[in-house]
């Protein structure tokens, strides 16, 4: 009974974790050596490390996306911002002799400006988030291409190389960066009242305004934060291939990021967000991608497999499934007693 209670209380947390473990185990059973981790040249090496390594850009973007989604918004422009900040990084490295920290600062700055732009459109001009950010999504790649003049600008910089592919204490540096960013964000959101305000604004703007929360400013900051995170991810992605690919960097990454946030249990209609679970969501998606790549499946099957597994994960995670299953099992034991989790049927305006 006690154990059941624990499960019940933490079902929201357990579902994504369980899905992740399941996917890793299934992949491991198909791909031998998937779980093995060796030490090569003083750092860890293996498919699991690859997943962490590859997941960092998405994780950063998803972090910003989670905050934006918390305010009942969405940011489609992150892919374009990644392209822009990558382009800035590359062009400044190649064409100027700015020190690396300045280059990075400039790139992050462009991200902030992009976020500010989105934020202003959404919170000052009241344009619906999806359209407001769609504008930068379309135009942003144009800006990035303008900066790189349509070519892939390759650059060389030891510091950036290290950011892209270096190791520190046996782990990739970029994973450390992501961890730092995640810890920082979680602290700020949970140890100050910011998280509460964001969730309140997302769930009910009118009520939040009336208690004196400055909703406009808050929403604006959410987009700025998302822009900042995307820029960070853009720098890492450019450093990764030592070049800025204005056309393809971060392409469709926004969808993965949103998917991760939602897998974590957040609603696109605003309200509660779950930062750490969002990272689990990112890991689910990246594990899936890596698993498909290592499995030797023909390329044209990628999408069908990905879609099927995502659907399966969603169905497993759905509280409804659990309810039906437990209803089914308990029916045999004591008929008529309805199952737990009932309250969710009455979720206020549970918009799809």
């Amino acid at each position: 009974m006690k154990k059941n209670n624990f499960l019940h209380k933490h079902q929201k947390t357990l579902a994504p974790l369980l899905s992740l473990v399941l996917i890793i185990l299934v992949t491991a059973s198909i791909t031998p050596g998937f779980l093995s981790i060796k030490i090569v040249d003083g750092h860890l090496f293996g498919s699991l490390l690859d997943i962490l390594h590859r997941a960092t850009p998405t994780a950063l973007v998803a972090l910003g996306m989670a905050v934006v989604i918390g305010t009942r918004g969405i940011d489609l422009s992150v892919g374009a911002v990644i392209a822009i900040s990558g382009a800035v990084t590359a062009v400044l490295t190649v064409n100027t002799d700015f020190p690396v920290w300045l280059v990075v600062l400039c790139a992050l700055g462009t991200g902030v400006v992009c976020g500010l732009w989105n934020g202003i459109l959404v919170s000052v001009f009241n344009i619906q988030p999806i359209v407001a950010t769609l504008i930068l999504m379309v135009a942003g790649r144009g800006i990035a291409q303008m900066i790189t003049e349509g070519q892939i600008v390759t650059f060389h910089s030891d510091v950036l190389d290290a950011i892209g592919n270096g190791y520190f204490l046996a782990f990739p540096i970029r994973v450390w960066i992501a961890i730092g960013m995640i810890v920082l964000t979680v602290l700020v959101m949970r140890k100050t009242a910011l998280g509460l305000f964001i969730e309140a604004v997302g769930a009910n703007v009118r009520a939040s305004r009336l208690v004196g929360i400055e909703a406009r400013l808050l929403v604006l900051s959410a987009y700025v934060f998302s822009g900042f995170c995307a820029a960070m991810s853009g720098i890492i992605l450019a450093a990764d291939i030592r070049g800025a690919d204005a056309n393809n960097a971060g392409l469709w990454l926004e969808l993965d990021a949103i998917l991760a946030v939602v897998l974590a249990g957040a609603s696109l209609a605003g309200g509660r967000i779950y930062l750490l679970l969002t990272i689990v969501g990112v890991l689910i998606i990246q594990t899936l991608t890596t698993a498909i790549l290592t499995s030797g499946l023909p390329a044209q099957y990628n999408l069908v497999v990905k879609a099927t597994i995502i659907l399966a994960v969603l169905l497993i995670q759905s509280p409804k499934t659990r309810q039906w299953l437990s209803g089914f099992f308990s029916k045999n034991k004591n008929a008529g007693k309805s199952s737990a989790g009932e309250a969710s049927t009455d979720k206020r305006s549970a918009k799809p």
Partner: protein
Amino acid sequence: MINERNLPILATLLVFIMLYGFGMYQYQGFRDTLVFSNLLTDNAFLIITAIGMTFVILSGGIDLSVGSMIAFIGVLMAYLISNTGMHPLFAIGIALVVGVAFGAAMGVIIAFFEIQAFIVTLAGMFLFRGLAYLINLDAVPIDHPFIAGLYDIYVPLPGRGGLTFIAMAMLVLLALGILIARRTRFGMSVYALGGDSHSAALLGVPVKKTIIKIYALSGFYSAMSGVIFAIYTGSAYPLAAVGVELDAIAAVVIGGTLLTGGVGYVFGTFLGGMIQGIIQTLITFDGSLNSWWTKLAVGGLLLFFILLQKGIVVWVKKRSAS
């Protein structure tokens, strides 16, 4: 006084007219009816998709699978016609049934498992594209006199323009959409769901049934769009219509529908689609922009029209207030 609920759509209409006027003023070739009939024909599949999307968005949901559905339906049709020798009419029938079924299936998952539409349809987007690859990786022509015959149906207009079969089909589907939205109980249920789904349930709206129907309807419209696209190009291509879902969403929203649901009109979506088309036409007529300036211009014009539309709404409200 103008009813405030119609204001956004009137603003959109005004923006469209201003834009068209600008084109006529600026470019000689723009004054021909051909440009208008091209707009109808070229944007037909987008508008058809967007009509289905309007219902989804009105209900407070979203459907990301429409672009992939277009490609999948096209490939399926081509397969049926060329590999089984089926008459195109049957193939179209089967394709539409499949589209509706897939849409309804997503609706079932959304309604009964209470999973958010965004990710269910995102999975649908991957799935349909993937299925298209599995049927046929390559682009294939659909060689059938019937399909070509459909394309050639044509009602000439004064000038060089004329209504193609595709344009007429779009207009019929538009009229159908308007009727469904405003004159059926299902349509009103859609609005109710988007306005407040909790209250809608208490008012006796059959929520689950309506959700399933909405996604089935969206499936129907995107499948229809797939058929139109196949007629339009006379071929099928698994990579067709990538990103159309975003264009369709943009068309719906530019047309004055709120993404939070409950407010908007199908006819606005038509205008939204036409505005997107006209932006492209203007850029092509100009012809001096390079690739990145094209992107900037598309984004910039989009922003300009949205702000203009907002401005008009605010201005009229202020005027009628004083």
